[in-house]
């Protein structure tokens, strides 16, 4: 029942914002379903495949999905993710994380103001 609740929340969030929903699934699995952080992250990735596919299907029916653009950014991102995951094991990312948080907040404020 708790998992169903997590799924409902994640699906709503995912479709509304175009994100996987991990930001909802991971903390909820840890907080209300007694998952460890590693298991929660891995399990959320599996759920996201289903959630994102459903989102694509529903949006495609309304003609909102642009496969050309998805490939344009998605394919290089896969290569980048491999590089990033490998590099992450070797370097300290703390300073970078703070910088990135500042950048995200700036984009967020820009979107709010615009």
């Amino acid at each position: 029942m708790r998992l169903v609740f997590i799924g409902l929340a994640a699906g709503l969030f995912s479709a509304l914002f175009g994100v996987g929903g991990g930001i909802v699934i991971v903390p909820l699995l840890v907080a209300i379903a007694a998952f460890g952080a590693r298991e929660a992250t891995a399990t959320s990735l599996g759920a996201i495949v289903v959630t994102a596919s459903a989102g694509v299907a529903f949006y495609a029916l309304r003609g909102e999905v642009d496969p050309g653009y998805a490939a344009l950014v998605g394919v290089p991102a896969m290569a980048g993710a491999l590089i990033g995951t490998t590099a992450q094991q070797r370097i300290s990312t703390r300073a970078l994380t703070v910088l990135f948080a500042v950048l995200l907040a700036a984009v967020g404020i820009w979107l709010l103001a615009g």
Partner: protein
Amino acid sequence: MSTTTIILGLCLGLVVGVMSGLLGVGGGILFVPLLVALGLGQVEAAATSLLAIIPTAAVGALRQSRYGNLRVVPALVIGASSIVGVEIGVRIATSVPEHVLRRLFGVLLIAVAVQLAWRARASNARYPDL
């Protein structure tokens, strides 16, 4: 698509991937602003971002299942029940004005920024969200 758009998309797509792998942030949160910057509308960007994150999530899930971290049944229960939420989310996204959606996305970005800053402080747990 113009040549400039293609070059920008490829380069920034690579940067998005590196950042999400490096920092454990989901691709979607970065794809959406990138796609908007490349000229898509907010709803179109959200829809297209969902397609773009599927392969990365699938590869990540497969890799994690080899490490024994993926719990398949809970993942499927969450995935299946998310479909109802997705349907509601799509309806809301396609019925509210785009500028409202864009502002909500701005709030989301700020929330993720706070979460990241918090994580940098705590520094022990990583939550890669896609």
